[in-house]
């Protein structure tokens, strides 16, 4: 059971305190979009063995949605950040890069 830290209220909670919401940073395709774009937006999801940017909601806590950068294989959490962004913040990307290069060096 994962432990995640809500970036809003600062609580480090058990996975059961949160609700998983799938892949983060999807771009919405609404009316006027092509069939392919809409299909990909609705149904095509990344399923990497490795770093995944994903949506979580602190459902039994402050109720806020946030994002987590998590390695699906090692379960390392590189950080959590508010959902009101369209891409991961630089400090988290730096942490991922550092971990990846450390891993490659091994």
């Amino acid at each position, binding site marked *: *059971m994962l432990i995640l830290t809500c970036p809003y209220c600062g609580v480090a909670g058990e996975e059961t305190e949160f609700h998983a919401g799938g892949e983060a940073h999807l771009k919405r395709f*609404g*009316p006027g979009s092509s*069939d392919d774009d809409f299909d990909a937006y609705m149904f095509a999801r990344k399923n990497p063995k490795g770093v995944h940017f994903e949506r979580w*909601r602190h459902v039994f806590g402050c109720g806020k949605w946030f994002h987590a950068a998590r390695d699906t294989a090692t379960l390392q959490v590189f950080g959590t950040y508010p959902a009101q962004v369209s891409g991961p913040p630089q400090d988290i990307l730096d942490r991922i890069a550092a971990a990846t290069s450390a891993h490659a060096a091994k």
Partner: protein
Amino acid sequence: MSTRLATGGSRIDRSKPRRFTFDGAGLRGFAGDTLASALLANNRMLVGRSFKYHRPRGIVAAGVEEPNALVNLGTGARHEPNQRATTTALFEGLTATPQNVWPSLDHDIGAVNGLFAPFLTAGFYYKMFLYPRAFWKHVYEPFIRQSAGLGRAPAPEDADPDTYEHFHAFCDVLVAGGGVAGLQAARVAARAGQRVLVLEQTSHWGGRAPVDGGTIDGQTTEAWTAATLAELAALPNVRFRTQVMVAGVYDHGYVLAHETVADDRPGAKGPRHRLWRIRATRIISATGAIERPLSFAGNDVPGVMLASAVRDYIAHYAVSPGDRVVIVTNNDDAYRTALAVHRAGLTVPVILDARPAGGGALMAEARAAGLRVETGRAIAKVLGTKRVTGVAVCAQAGEGAVLDTIPCDAVAMSGGWSPVVHLWSHCGGKLIWDADRAMFRPDAARPPTDHTGAGFVTCTGAANGALTLAEVLADAGATGQVDAPLEAALAPVWMMPQGAGPKLRAKAWLDFQNDVKVSDVQQAAQEGYQSVEHAKRYTTLGMATDQGKLSNINGLAILSDALGQPIPQTGTTTFRPPYAPISMGAIGGAARGDVFQPIRRTCLYDWHEAAGAHWEPVGQWRRPYCYPRAGETHQDAVRREITTVRSAVGLLDASTLGKLIVKGPDAGRFLDLIYTNMMSTLAVGRCRYGLMCNENGFLSDDGVVARMSDDTFLCHTTTGGADRIHAHLEEWLQTEWWDLQVYVANVTEHWAQFAVVGPKARQVLEKLGGLDVSKSALPFMNWAEGTLGGVTARVFRISFSGELSYEIAVPVSLGRAFWDALLAAGAEYGAAPYGTEALHVLRAEKGFIMIGDETDGTVIPQDLGLDWAISKKKPDYIGKRGQERLRMVDPDRWKLVGLETLDGSVIPDGAYAVADGRNANGQRNTQGRVTSTYFSPTLGRGIAMGLVRRGPDRMGEVIEFPKLDGSSVKARIVSPVFYDPNGEKQDA
């Protein structure tokens, strides 16, 4: 025979005899015995029959790894199958029966399966039962059902009479296992100031050390254990418990452990088992190692046991498994058993050491004691069926030519030791193959990782491959001086003898519990099963309740040999929790009966109960289905309630209706995106029926929106939808349109809400007095705030029945008082409460849809004739793009219509309308289905709504609905609005 020795037995108390029954026979043991040791003391070596061939099976081990001695324990409601005799503490009155036996343990008809053994090999079920197809129902399936499953499940009508609980614990370091390694590791962590929790699965500390001997700094291992425990007990930061088995390690240091609290005290007060739910920063797995059997013909005959178990029974319980015990080994450790048997005054006719050069100091000690040691020798086969009568000896290097036959009644075997790496592996810790010691052990460089990316499990002692006392102590961080004999290297022996032919291999068992032999695994390899995971499932090796604790390594060594590849290339199967079986009761804990899930009650719950309501669960709510009066059936009551509403006035507790406040400068814009219709144009004081879809375009919820003020809307949702829709709004607000300035609050439980419905509704409210509820002051689809009967109320003129209707919301604390006032005011008008079933029929008569009846997650609003509630002007709303997809605009879609049976009967719920022809599966084609169907007391006939292909274009057409009894009912396609189609009544 196996018997109780005159003296000894560190765990038994001879002053406390315990009576028990096994297979109907009254037997005696002592306090401190396990069921297994007590059975052996009574010369009961044969304890069960094997799963597939019904071969006689005896006790093999002394601990949790036991594959054979599974019994039905207890009687009546406390009957429990598959209990391991080796871990069951004996108590006065214990009752056990053997499993897989018919008609009896001694004479088992199923043993005839053995005659068909050549046909019951790997993949048997897949191959044999395919053809002919017709045999499935009457021949194959009954046979499989008869022979499938271990033990018998408790009777379904017997509720478990015991209680269980969950226990939450937190620690810096969790130590699993209370042997020398675990205690030493706990001491190191405790001295470093860590919060330490030590859990031991048995009732005893010290692990194998008290039996296996050696000294630490001149102390016996017992004295060392006692001193270490005393030191830990004095520390405030250490807790330790026995009888708690660490069952599983999960992501980020979550651990489940299972405590047997009162298994030996049936009916005692308090929980029988506890499930420990632990958060540990670091886990030290000091779970020891398990001895491996050797694969020789007849290694499953009762009397063949693990060498370590033989000396455990002697040392702990003063039980000798046999008078003449042959030892067979590929390592030095088994010599300890030879010496223990010898010192107990029993006979060791021979020690067969498969290693050409034999062993080290322990072998010398055995020889010095006068024991006969034969090196390079093996067992060709075991003699005897229900009990060992002797062994045929051969050379390990040969093909099994018998050199000698030695009478004996027990065989102690040792194929080396496998570290218990389960807790290391549960979360992905990797293993390496240690070829020198023939074992998989943890690869410290590849541990399971926590949220920081650091390893959070370490193994220590035998679990880490450190098998001797000196290695164990050093591995656990101690510097003590150990005195124990030096051991010579083990020689891997996967087949005994090495060149055993097909006849011997077909009698050499790998998995005792699932009846898998060496020949089965070799056959699987021959048939192309190269992956160990596939071979496991094909042969069922390691798939029984013991999860292959004895068999896995031997099995994959045989598989590797058959595939001609090294063992590490074959790898292991996946280790999954729980380490050993845990009870379903413990998993459930206290969540049973009334506390299984919370019940949500409206403020009128007690009133409904007193009024004789028949309850209907709606999500976690309980709502009155109807209020039957004396002599009334539920059906009578529902019809009376409907008639009351249509002819006088009915009162409904609608408090469960979801109520969401959406507030902010952008609330209108936001709701325009959420609902299919336009909400921003709604005037203050007005109400509008709205539809919500998901992004796929499918209808998700409906309800009336009331505009409270310029920036505030009250959105009603369905009873089941309140929490879901609240979450839906929050998700879009927070993750997509976070630039909008809007708050959403779920005020469902702040308001009691009552519907006052029927032609006399207005008179009732006027009698209460206060707010002007006349048609001109408060027209249909308007709302107003004021006082009614002295209570501040919000009054909504909305109708879900087609009648003149007011929904009145009052603060929940005033709900009961207001309801009482309504009843009093309504008495002279014939007012009576009505329940959810009347509500459903009333809305169906009017052709109103119900989320969950007319919708099922594949229905768009356009299917339901709700195009009028879909804005054509808005550029966007959730679901708009989804509804533009080709399939959604297909004119062939099934659409909502009313259905009027020609004979006036009620169409069965969910019935399908058939069409011409048949589909690819030979089934009748369909052209529609019933979504709501009721008897309408208003119309005096059955009415239904349904989705029918191009339905609205086919008014007047008659379609046919087959019924389960083979007959069918014909219905005419009509408008779904059966009652007051012009809406005059609700507008009155």
